[in-house]
C-alpha cells in the first residue's frame, strides 16, 4: 500500500511487467517476510525472501551459470503532510553458483559486514540460504527512533551480471525477468 503511495516510474513499469509475466507468477521472487528493527546505529533485518526460479533460469544455474540476486532495501521516514522521506538505501548482491566437481551449490552473500560462502547440497537449500535474512545489520547514522519508519524491500535477478551472450536472451525473455516488486515493512520500535 505504501509502496504505491511512493510511486515512481519504476513502480508502473514493474506493474506492467508483472502483469505480463502473470503466467509465470509461480516462478518468481517474493519477499515473504521481513522484520526490520533498529539496533545500535544499524537497521537489522530478519526474514526470508522466496526465490523461485523459472525452468530456464534453473537450467542455466545447473549448467554452471552464476546468478546474482539484488536485494534493494530503502528506509523511509514517515511524514504526515509530505511524501515520505527516503533516509537510506542499500543494495545487497548475493550470488549462487553450481560447483560441478563437488555437486554443490555455492552461495555467497556479499552482505555488508559478513562475507560468507556456503556450500549446499541441494538447490532448494541453496536458494533458501540465498534468500534468508539472518539478523542482517545495515549500518545507519542519524536516526531518530521516535519517528515512524518503514522499509521497502525488493529482490530481483541481475541480468547485467549474466554472461554477455546471455543478456540479449534474458532481456527479451520473460522467464528471466524475476522480480519481487517493492514491498513495505514497518520498522519495529
Amino acid at each position: 500500500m505504501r509502496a504505491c503511495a511512493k510511486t515512481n516510474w519504476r513502480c508502473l513499469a514493474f506493474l506492467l511487467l508483472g502483469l505480463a509475466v502473470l503466467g509465470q507468477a509461480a516462478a518468481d521472487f517474493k519477499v515473504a517476510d521481513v522484520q526490520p528493527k533498529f539496533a545500535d546505529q544499524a537497521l537489522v533485518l530478519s526474514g526470508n525472501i522466496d526465490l523461485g526460479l523459472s525452468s530456464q533460469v534453473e537450467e542455466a544455474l545447473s549448467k554452471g551459470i552464476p546468478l546474482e540476486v539484488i536485494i534493494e532495501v530503502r528506509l523511509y521516514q514517515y511524514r504526515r503532510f509530505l511524501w515520505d522521506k527516503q533516509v537510506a538505501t542499500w543494495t545487497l548482491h548475493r550470488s549462487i553458483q553450481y560447483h560441478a566437481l563437488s555437486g554443490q551449490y555455492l552461495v555467497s552473500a556479499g552482505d555488508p559486514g559478513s562475507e560468507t560462502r556456503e556450500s549446499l547440497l541441494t538447490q532448494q537449500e541453496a536458494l533458501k540460504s540465498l534468500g534468508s535474512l539472518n539478523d542482517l545489520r545495515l549500518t545507519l547514522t542519524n536516526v531518530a527512533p521516535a519517528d515512524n519508519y518503514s522499509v521497502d524491500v525488493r529482490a530481483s535477478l541481475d541480468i547485467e551480471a549474466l554472461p554477455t551472450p546471455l543478456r540479449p536472451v534474458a532481456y527479451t525473455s520473460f522467464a528471466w525477468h524475476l522480480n519481487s516488486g517493492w514491498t513495505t515493512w514497518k520498522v519495529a520500535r
Partner: protein
Amino acid sequence: MESGALKSGAGAPRERTEGWNRYVTRYVTGVTPLAVLSLLLIAAFIMMNAAAQNSALFGRLYSVLLLVNILGVVLLLALILLNLFHLLEQYRARVTGTRLTVRLLVMFVVLAVVPVSVVFFFSIQALNRGIDNWFDVRIERALDDALLLGRTALDALKQDLVKNTQTMAGEIETISVTRKIGGPRSELSLLNALREQYAITELTLFTQDGKIVASSSDASLDTGTLLPDRPNDAILAQVRQGLVYANLDAIGRSGLQLRVVVPVHPREVGAPNRALQALQALPPRYAKLGESVQSAFADYEKLVYLRGPLKFGFTLTLSLIALLTLLIAVWAAIFSARRLAAPIRELAEGTRAVAQGDYQKQLPVTSHDEIGILVESFNDMTRRIHRAQSQSKRSQQEAEIQRAYLETVLGHLSSGVLTFNQRLMLRTHNPAASHILGVELKAGERKPLAWLAERYPLLQPFTESIAQATAAGDSEWRTQIELPANNHSRTLMVRGTLLPSWRGKRGGYVVVFDDITTLIQAQRNAAWGEVARRMAHEIKNPLTPIQLSAERIRHKYLRQVEEEERGALDRATRTIIEQVEALKSMVNDFSEYARSAQLRSRPVDLNDLIRDVVELYKNERGLAAAGVVPLHGVAGRTGRKTPRPVATRLELDADLPVVSADPGRLRQVLHNLLLNARDALATTPKPVIRVSTRTVTENLHRFVELKVQDNGPGFPEAMLGRLYEPYVTSKERGTGLGLAIVKRIVEEHGGTTHAENLKEGGACVTIRLPVGEAALAEAPLHKPVHAETKA
C-alpha cells in the same frame, strides 16, 4: 502544391508550412544528421563487437550499447522512411527530376541490398557452423569422464577420511569415559594428538546443538579465521540421527576441502551425543587437478549452454550491422540519387522556363563534369536566345516607330494613298484617300479591287483604271479620270508605282491620287477671265461710237423723217441704245470679273455696309411702303421695271468685329447677292430676303459670317456643283457672272463662299470673312443696336 490565388489571410500558414519544410529538409532529410548517426552507430557496433568478445571494458556496457544501436537503427530507419516519404510526395506531385531520382534510388538500393544480403546470409551460416564446431561429443565425454575420475579419486580420499574419523570418534568415546575428570582440556589434547596422528587439517568436537567442545587445527594452514569451521544445521541434524556426513566442500579462496562429520556416542548412559568434524584440505596436487577439472568442465558446460544465446547474440549483432549497412546504403543511395538528379532537374526546369518564354534563365554550374558542360551549354544557349530576342524586339520596336512615322506622314498627306498587294487586295489607305473618294475604305481592307468596284459603283472609273494599269504591267503609270459625284464630276489625277519585289515575288502597287477638280476649275477660271478681259476690251471700244451714232441719228433725223416713219426710227434707235447699254453693262461685268485684284483694305464694319446697301435700294425705289422694301431692277439691266415688293429682314449681330476689307468690293458682293435674290423671287408670292451676320469660331480661327437667304425656288439641282463657274446661270438674261464675281472677291479677302438650298425652301449663300489680327486691334465699331430693320 497550392492554387496560385492564395489570399493574404492564408499567407501565414503557408509561410509556416514552408518553414517546416525547410526545417525538415535541413534537419531531417539532410545529409548531416544521417551521416552523424551512421558514424555513431558504426562506433557503437565496434564497441558492441568488443563487448561480445568478453572485453572487460565494454562487457558492462553491452546492454546499453545494444539498446543504443537498436534505437539508432530505428531512428535511422525512421529518417530514411521520412526521406522516402518526402520523395514519394514529390513523385506524386510530379516534381521535376523525381522520376530520375527514384529510378537511380531503386538501382542503387538493389545494387546495395543484393550483395549485403548474400554476405549476411553466408556470414550467418558460417557463424553458426563455426560456433557448432566448438563443441565435440568426444571432448564432452572426456570432460565428463575427467569429472567422474576426479570425483572417484576424491571419493576414495573421502572414504579414508570417514574411516579415520570414525576411528577417532571411537577413541574420543573411550577417552571421555576413562578421563572424565580431565574435561574439555583432556579432549583438546586428545584431539591434537589424533589430528597429528591422522594428519587432519582441522578437527572439532561439537555438542549436539552445534556448540564447540574442543577444536584442533593445523597452525600452518592459513584459514583466515580463528574460529573453527562450523557445519550448518542440516549437517548437524543429519548427525543427530546417527548418520555420517561426508562431502567435498568448495570453500572460498582456500579451494577444496573434505568435510566429514560423525556422531560420537558416549559410553556413559545418559551422556549427550556429540559430533566430531574432520576437515581435511586436499593435498595440493589433488586440489590443483580437481580445480582444473572443475573449471574446465564448468567452462565447457557454460559454453554448451550459452551456444544458443551466443548464436542469438552474434546473429543479432550481425543483423544489426547488416541492417545498418543496408540503411546507410539506402541513405547514400537517396543522397547520391538526389545529388545526381539535381543538375538534371535544374536543367529540366530551365528548359521548361525557356519553353515558357523566360530567356533570362541561368543555371548554377556546380560541377565540371559532362553535366557541368551541359549546364554551361544551356546557359550559353539562353544567353544567345535572350540576346537574339531582345534584338528582334528592338527591331520590332523600330519597325513600329517607322510604321507610326509612315502612318503619320500618310495621314497628313493631302493626296490619297492606297497600296495593293500583288493580287490587288487593298492593304493600306490613308484618311485623305477615303476623303477624296468619298467612301469608307476601312471596310475594304484586305478585299480585292473588284470588291471595291462592286461595293461602290461610283468608284468604277477609278478601279478600272487601276486594274487596267496593273494588268499592263507598267512599273509606273499616271492617268486622269473623271469620277462622277452627286451632280458634278470630279477629276482625279492617279499615279501608280509597282513596289519592289521581295524574294522573287512580285511586289504590290502603291496608288497616289489627288483631287484636281479645283485646280482645273482655277485654270478654267483663269482662262475665262482672260477671255472676258479681251472680250470686254474688244467689245467695249466700238460700243460707245455705236451708242453715240444711234443717239445722233435719233437726235438728227427724228424730226426730219416723215410722221409715219418717225415711230419706227424712234423704236429702232431706242432699241440700239438700250441694247448697247445692256451690252455695255455686260462688258462691264466681264471686265469686273476679269479685273485683277487690287484690294484697298481697311477696317470695315460689315453691319454698316449692309445697312448702307439696303438703304440705297430703299431710296432707289422712292415709294416707301411700311415694312416692305421693293427692290427693283437696275435701270437698263433688264430693260423693264419690276415693281414687286420684296421684304428685307436684317438680323445683324451687334457684337460683330470689324474686318479688314475693301469696302467697295464688299459692296459689289452685297449688291450681287441682293440682285440674285431679287431675281430669284420674281415668281414668289411673298418674297422675303433675310440678311444676317454673326461671329463664328472654327479651328481657333474667327470669322465674320454673312448669310443672304431668300424664300424662292432655290438653285436648280443640276447647277449646284457649278454655281461659281462663269456663265452658269438659270436666268434668261443673266451673264452667269454674279456668283462667280462674289466668290472671287471673297476669296481675294481670304474668305470662303458656300451656297446651298434650304430645307424649308429657298437658297442661302454664306460668306465667311476672316477677322484679321490688325482689324481686331482696332476699337470695335459696332453699335449696340440690334439691327432688325424692317424698312
